[in-house]
């Protein structure tokens, strides 16, 4: 009987080491993402899991049997606290340690869906410590120490793990996730050169509702005194709901690009408690200059809107998130307001990294929460769970500036510009082949020709206009085309954040689009596989299409890839990039045909 315990302990010890080796080898091997021994990957996963459960069962028998073995004379404390036993403390201690590591691995794996991915994975790395410790324990203690057969078993185990690691290292060549979203940085396309700002200062200093189109920029009040002289103080509202109702009547929509109704977002956030409001002026789009222009010319309108929005949703905290170049200006404006005790809530200023995706809503929330400014997976809306878990209202700075005016002059005044369905004005960054590129305030529905004329007219006959920025779509340079969601819908385009880029007839649209998509591919945060792998492929194919005598299968392949990446990311960066790629193939169908035949339309037009 006494010997039986001793044999049992030795046997289960060795077998559990072998099983642990199998578990580690399968765990390492499965990470390569290739089938192992022709088994389906889920079967490898199951084998890994079941072998681990079997190993821990044998381990329990191993420990209990040695505990009751009269020869080793171990106390309970010896098998719980490592290196305390009187009998071979070091080698036994290693066993205790390995056992505890294995138990930690198993327990965290069983409850991993409760623990969350990060914690579970962090603990799971302990496997790389548990296995060598267990091996050392096996080699260094027990009756079989030094026995050839044991050394052979240990050698085979080590070889198995080494083979698994080699298999893992030689994995398929596929773009891996960027370590921290940094690293590669997109090179701005030609069009992103700095845009000059043309603003006509208002000549009327009295407090009256702005009559013309220049509502936001026309005031030109950079300091608080002038701002108050021009617009007067913010009116008080009898109830919070009143502000949201006024916004709903005005039909204000988000000016950051998505165009979501502002009142609905505000109502969602107002329904929660301890809300947070963030003014978003990150303006990651290099072709856009409207947010920085607005912040330079009318910072107090934005800050008025921020306070109004904060009041409307009963926010506890207010933040403003903007490009580093705008930080000093906003600090100065905030200091003026503090001196006059103007604001209910103090405003925390955050600098946004100069990256395309840093202005995306979940990236804004991450940045303001003190994390890296990259988009995150969302199971619940930011309006429910945002900054530090609080319901969060993220609004573009232009939207907030409009709010500052609506509060003073009312919904009916706001609707005097724009269309019935899309009321109000928006800040348009008009660039490309125009005489005076810059930021202009225009009403929704403005004919495209009129907008181009505002920017001094085209420098040459135009081929197309990219509307909505780098995530937008190409439209023909039709002078009568209304710049509104409704007007642009048939081109799968929208005003978005107000970017319009004119392309002259001597520039090849395919080449320009290839450059933009190349930039967008490099601007991927590198978190999501389809975006990380698909966007560079899309850019390569557009670049190939931009060369004469290209492969005739390219347009169809571009369409397929664009559809493939759409909807498969934490944010809409792949969707927007795919939209531009598809729009390019459609809008420049003539150029595609010419390129397939070894010619180029743009070059002929020169």
């Amino acid at each position, binding site marked *: 009987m006494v010997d039986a315990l001793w044999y049992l302990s030795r046997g289960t010890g060795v077998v559990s080491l072998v099983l642990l080796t199998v578990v580690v080898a399968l765990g390492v091997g499965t990470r390569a993402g290739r089938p192992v021994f022709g088994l389906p*990957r889920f079967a490898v996963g199951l084998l890994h899991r079941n072998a681990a459960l079997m190993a821990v069962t044998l381990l329990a028998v191993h420990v209990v049997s040695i505990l009751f073995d009269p020869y080793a004379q171990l106390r309970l404390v010896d098998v719980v606290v490592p290196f305390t036993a009187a009998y071979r403390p070091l080698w036994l201690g290693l066993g205790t340690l390995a056992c505890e590591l294995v138990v930690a691995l198993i327990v965290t794996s069983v409850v991993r869906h409760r623990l*969350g991915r990060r914690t579970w994975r962090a603990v799971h790395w302990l496997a790389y410590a548990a296995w060598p410790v267990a091996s050392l324990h096996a080699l260094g203690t027990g009756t079989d120490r030094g026995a050839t057969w044991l050394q052979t078993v240990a050698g085979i185990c080590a070889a198995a793990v080494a083979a698994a690691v080699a298999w893992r290292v030689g994995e398929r060549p596929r773009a891996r996730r960027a370590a921290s979203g940094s690293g590669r940085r997109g090179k701005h396309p030609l069009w992103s050169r700095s845009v000059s700002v043309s603003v006509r200062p208002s000549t009327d200093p009295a407090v009256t509702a702005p009559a013309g189109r220049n509502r936001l920029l026309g005031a030109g009040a950079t300091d608080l005194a002038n701002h108050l002289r021009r617009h007067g103080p913010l009116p008080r509202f009898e109830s919070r709901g009143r502000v949201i109702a006024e916004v709903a009547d005005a039909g204000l929509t988000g000016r950051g690009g998505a165009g979501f109704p502002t009142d609905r977002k505000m109502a969602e956030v107002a329904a929660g408690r301890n809300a947070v409001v963030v003014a978003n002026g990150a303006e990651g789009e290099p072709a856009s200059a409207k947010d920085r222009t607005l912040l330079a010319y009318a910072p107090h309108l934005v800050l008025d809107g921020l306070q109004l929005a904060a009041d409307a949703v009963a926010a506890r905290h207010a933040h403003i998130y903007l490009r580093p170049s705008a930080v000093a200006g906003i600090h100065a404006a905030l200091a003026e307001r503090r001196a006059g005790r103007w604001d209910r809530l103090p405003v925390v200023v955050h600098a946004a990294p100069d990256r395309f995706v840093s202005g995306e809503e979940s990236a804004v929330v991450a940045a303001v929460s003190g994390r890296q400014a990259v988009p995150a997976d969302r199971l619940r809306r930011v309006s429910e769970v945002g900054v530090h878990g609080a319901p969060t209202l993220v609004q573009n700075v232009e939207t907030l500036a409009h709010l500052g005016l609506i509060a003073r002059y009312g919904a009916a005044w706001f609707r005097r510009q724009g269309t019935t369905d899309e009321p109000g004005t928006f800040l348009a960054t008009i660039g490309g082949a125009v005489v005076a590129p810059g930021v202009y305030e225009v009403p929704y529905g403005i004919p495209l020709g009129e907008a181009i004329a505002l920017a001094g007219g085209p420098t040459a006959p135009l081929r197309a206009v990219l509307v909505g920025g780098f995530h937008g779509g190409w439209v023909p340079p039709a002078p009568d085309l209304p710049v509104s969601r409704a007007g642009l819908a048939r081109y799968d385009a929208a005003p978005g954040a107000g970017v319009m880029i004119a392309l002259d007839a001597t520039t090849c649209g395919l080449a320009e689009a290839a450059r933009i998509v190349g930039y967008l591919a490099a601007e991927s945060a590198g978190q999501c*596989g389809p975006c990380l792998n698909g966007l560079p492929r899309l850019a390569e194919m557009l670049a190939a299409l931009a060369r004469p005598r290209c492969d005739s299968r390219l347009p169809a392949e571009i369409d397929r890839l664009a559809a*493939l990446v759409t909807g498969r990311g934490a944010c809409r960066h792949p969707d927007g990039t795919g939209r531009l790629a598809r729009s390019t193939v459609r809008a420049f169908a003539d150029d595609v045909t010419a390129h397939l035949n070894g010619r180029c339309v743009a070059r002929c037009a020169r």
Partner: protein
Amino acid sequence: MTHSRLHVDWTACDGRGLCIELLPELLAADDWGYPVPRDGAREPVVPADLMPHARRAVDQCPMMALRLLGRGAT
């Protein structure tokens, strides 16, 4: 009547492909081994008869990138 939808956390998904093996009716592999919903939806609806398989896929995803949303999710 609402159905369960399959949600992929793309920031977590590493294209290991277990879900594609366990739910071939709903998911296919893309050019790089990441799952693509066959119906093209962002979050494909899981028919009632596939729910056990979907739960298994969620349970076995090594990156914990899969989730069931809506009815019968838990």
